[in-house]
């Protein structure tokens, strides 16, 4: 899967950074069957997500297949200035992985 699957809105307000993020991902559970071929669609989902700010982890998640398609997460942490970078690393169950960066507004 190509890079750039995660869309992020990160806003710094009064010493806090509020983050909303959505990954563009089908989160295949491995329980669905293809209607035309009748074959089971293999599981393909995000297993871990980690968000770092200035070398420090500010959010991490271990995910199962019951997270909805196009996973959405919201959280906030007590740091961050507009212009700071957030590094977001994701790992798929297939072993695919990437790190994406986004600036705090």
């Amino acid at each position, binding site marked *: 899967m190509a890079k750039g699957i995660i869309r992020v809105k990160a806003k710094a307000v009064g010493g806090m950074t509020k983050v909303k993020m959505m990954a563009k991902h089908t989160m295949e559970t491995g329980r669905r069957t293809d209607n035309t071929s009748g074959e089971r669609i293999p599981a393909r989902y995000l297993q871990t997500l980690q968000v770092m700010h200035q070398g420090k982890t500010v959010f991490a998640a271990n995910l199962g*297949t019951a997270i909805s398609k196009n996973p959405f997460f919201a959280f906030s942490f007590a740091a961050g200035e507009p212009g700071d970078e957030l590094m977001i690393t994701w790992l798929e169950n297939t072993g695919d992985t990437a790190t994406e960066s986004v600036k705090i507004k």
Partner: protein
Amino acid sequence: MSMNRRAVVKAIASGSALIGISVLMPRIALAAWNSDAFQADNQATAMEALLGGSPQPSADVTLKVPDSADNGAMVPVTVRTSMANVESISLFVEGNPAPLVAEFLIPEGTEADVATRVRMASTSTVTAVVKAEGQLYSAAKEVKVVLGGCDS
């Protein structure tokens, strides 16, 4: 020929998986994915595997879910707590084929307040478990599901 190709593809896939994992290991060490817990088909087993115990219900854990969901494929869930030193927040849906939905690790400085969207196979109880200072606290609520979301 086709067998050969398959073997090559497999080798590449497993190789890249290994590289991916080894590169990530030091950074993602905080967030080890617990396969026993995620694959458990029973909520109690999953909790035991993930958290090493069962939680005490607590009024300090706030779980926000709708009373009913038309579409089980996307049920919004918010969990927050005012407790100090929260280490993790985990979500379970009892009626799902695999009840453990997600485990959020809350580092110091991050609010114990997370929101996400989950799949629900059928009407069932959603449970949020907060781990704070080694203790487990929970809040649970039933969500009525009109159309199941695990197969869609």
